[in-house]
Structures are given as structure tokens and as C-alpha cells.
């Protein structure tokens, strides 16, 4: 546990970061920037896991392991999403969400 910093301050930082990610997901219209907003959301959730682990259950490691798994899932998701984005770009020359509205080749 860290002296002088209450648990709530970590939670407030990660909450604000989470909702900045949600806001970015709503206002951005480009596939890659939406992917970056998702990375922000996953990252804030990781901070929550690790902080709860350190402050509330310092004798166990659940939070650390599950944030490790979340990082792995984020990596898999980013690789598949970027493969899809590059394929969409190859077919439509464009990755704005408004223009990608047909599912046929």
C-alpha cells in the first residue's frame, strides 16, 4: 500500500479516463481513432484491477493476473481489428465510418 494516496484518487483517475474513452468512441468517425478509444477504456479498467488488488487484497494476485489477461485480449483484438481495417481500406479506399456502409465486395 502507498502512503498518502487514498484508493479513491486512483479510482477517480481511471473513471475519468474511461469516460474520455467513451466520449472519443462517440465523437470520432474514423475506425483507427475508435480503436484507440477502446484501448483507453481497456487501460483504465486495468488500473482499477491492479489498484483493488494492491489496496484491498495485498496477499493475493487476482487483480494482476486478470489485468495481464486483459492486456492479452487487447493485443488480440487490436491485431484482428487492424487486419479488418486494412482489408476495408483495400476494398473501399476509405476508413471513415459513414462511408463504410455496404457489406458486399
Amino acid at each position: 500500500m502507498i502512503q498518502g494516496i487514498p484508493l479513491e484518487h486512483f479510482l477517480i483517475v481511471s473513471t475519468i479516463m474511461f469516460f474520455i474513452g467513451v466520449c472519443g468512441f462517440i465523437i470520432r468517425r474514423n475506425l483507427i481513432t475508435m480503436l484507440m478509444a477502446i484501448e483507453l477504456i481497456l487501460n483504465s479498467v486495468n488500473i482499477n484491477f491492479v489498484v483493488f488488488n494492491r489496496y484491498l487484497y495485498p496477499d493475493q494476485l487476482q487483480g494482476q493476473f486478470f489485468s495481464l489477461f486483459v492486456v492479452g485480449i487487447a493485443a488480440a483484438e487490436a491485431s484482428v481489428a487492424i487486419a479488418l481495417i486494412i482489408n476495408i481500406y483495400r476494398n473501399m479506399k476509405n476508413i471513415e465510418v459513414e462511408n463504410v456502409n455496404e457489406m458486399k465486395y
Partner: protein
Amino acid sequence: MNVLMFYLFSGIILIFSLLSITTRRILRAAVYLLFVLVATSGLYFMLKYQFMAAVQLTLYAGGIVVLIIFSILLTHHITHRFKHPNLTKLLMGIGATTVGIGLVITTILSHSFKAGTAPELPVDMTVIGNQLLSTGKNGYILPFELISILLLAAMIAAIVIAKKENNKNSEI
């Protein structure tokens, strides 16, 4: 000192995540995201989870950001600027964000967390390796195996999706 570092890291996280969703140049957005991820790994170092911080640095800051920057360079012109988002969408986003932040922060502050009193477990590589692959108490082998299957599936899927279509004439 600790407190100062914490507020420095949280300031970096908040400012650069806000910049990363509002800047009009996409490459700058990726670089701001990199700053956010590095500051997050600084928070993990403060909490004394060195392994988690190293994973964050190598996988997120080293892997995913480089992947994103490559895909930006493949799909965008370097001087491309975004249009401003239209007003209704902007208002909707800001409204949802402020309502959500207010709701969650009031909930957090009204709840009293009971700090754990158990002695701290030293997090070294032996403990992590043993717990990650043990089947007994405090063992995490089932999620570990699930993640490995998921990673294999994602790798195959990324290759299959991104590979070029074969010409029908060139087959056989």
C-alpha cells in the same frame, strides 16, 4: 515524493487522453496515446507491480502503438486533418461523459473501502510463474489456457483476413 509522482502521472494520463481524442491529426493522436500508456505503467511501478508494468511497456507501448502507427501510415496521407465533428454528436458525447463521470464518482465517494490488513505478498517472478501454471489454490491455469487458444485463433484470423485474394486464374 510518492504523492507528487502520483499526481504527475495522473495529470499526464488525463491531459494526454483528452488530447488524444480531440486532436485533428491522427498521427499525433497515436503519439498522445503512447504517453498515456507509459504514464499508466509508471502507476504500476508505484504500486510495486514491476512485472505488470513491464508487460504494459512492452506489449501496449511497444506493440499495440507501433501496430496502430503502421496502420495509420498505410491508410492515411500524412498531412490529413479530420473535419470537426458535428454539433449534435459532440453534445451527445460530452453529455454522456459528464453524466457518467458524475454518477460513478458519487458512487465511489459514498462507498467506504476497507483496506486489506494481510501482509503484502512479494511479487517476484517465481510467485507469478508458480501461480500462473498451478492447478491448486490460487492457480490460474484455466484462464491461461483460454487466453492461449484465443491468441492462436486471433493470429490465424488476422492472417486469413489480411492476406490478398488469390486470382482465380493463377490457381492450379
